């Protein structure tokens, strides 16, 4: 099971829009959920969700969605 990149989306309050806060590398969605929850734990999130980055299709940019550069895992990687 090769690792893949999961994007992490959060909102602090119910009325907030979902925000892309970063990403994690994980071998499956269950592990991605734990890694996301434990890595981006700076707030008491109303909601957090993860999705494989491959699930997103770029619309107006050639680069992969969210322009993630594969650097050290776990760090915020939004260009």
């Amino acid at each position, binding site marked *: *099971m090769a*690792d893949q990149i999961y994007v992490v989306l959060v909102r602090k309050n119910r009325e907030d829009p979902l925000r892309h806060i970063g990403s*994690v*590398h*994980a*071998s*499956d969605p*269950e*592990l991605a*959920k*734990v*890694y996301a*929850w*434990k*890595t981006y*734990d700076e707030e008491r999130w109303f909601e957090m969700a993860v999705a494989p980055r491959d699930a997103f299709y770029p619309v107006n940019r050639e680069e992969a969605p969210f322009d993630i550069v594969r650097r*050290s*895992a*776990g760090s915020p990687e939004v260009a």
Partner: protein
Amino acid sequence: MTNDVRSTADFSSESQRALHDLILSLADSKRIIGILYADWVLGAPELEANIATSSISQDEWGHSRLLYALLKDFGEDPEKLEHEREPSEYRNIEALDQRLATWPQFVVANAIIDSALTVQLEALAGTRYAPLRQRVQKQLEEERFHEAHGAAWLRRLGNSSNAARSATQEALDARWSEVLHWFGPDDFGAAEKSDGLSDGTGGELRARFVERMTPVIQGAGLEVPSAELDFSGWDPASRRSNRTGPDPEAVARARGDRNRAFFVETAEPEK
């Protein structure tokens, strides 16, 4: 909740003793597992796992503090419990006596031993001893993520190389029987159950644990070990069969021996 009890003075002395022993066993198990997890904060196979391990380790430390503090109501001095006991006085689950020398051993502790503690904790979620009930909920919320982490890694190792799978099965085989024994004989805790303090006897909690772990283990391509239960020599107060206790180095770290040495050096009165 009806029939809530807020003070231990309202319990029979038998109930007081049983609840005290149960809380201490959980507190010590959580303290020791937190210390053993901490060994892997820098050694896990990937950065995200390091972060998760660090956080899980801190969760366990926090849980044990909550539980030790509760024992004040039972006439204990939490400070002494946390910092002044010898390994032989610890009442942690025997499956945590050894260090977690390899990552598969860590994963088995995370997936199996931690989950056994959670099954016991869940049995207290509706306890009529209100101070305990109020402390259980937060712990259970955090344990959901511990369990998910353990299960995901068990699956990953079980579906990995033959070497990883056999090391994981070996770690599982080594600890399984100790975990099953920790729940006690089938009728252990029957009085506390009928008194509304807990919702399961030893046999019932063991069955819940096996039922929960079986799909996790089999889903990882591993085998549920077989175990012969034998409770001769099993002590109901410590829920242990041996009196040796956990690894002395782990206890020294749990007690904060080095912190105290440092504190003593700097606490000389200034002239």
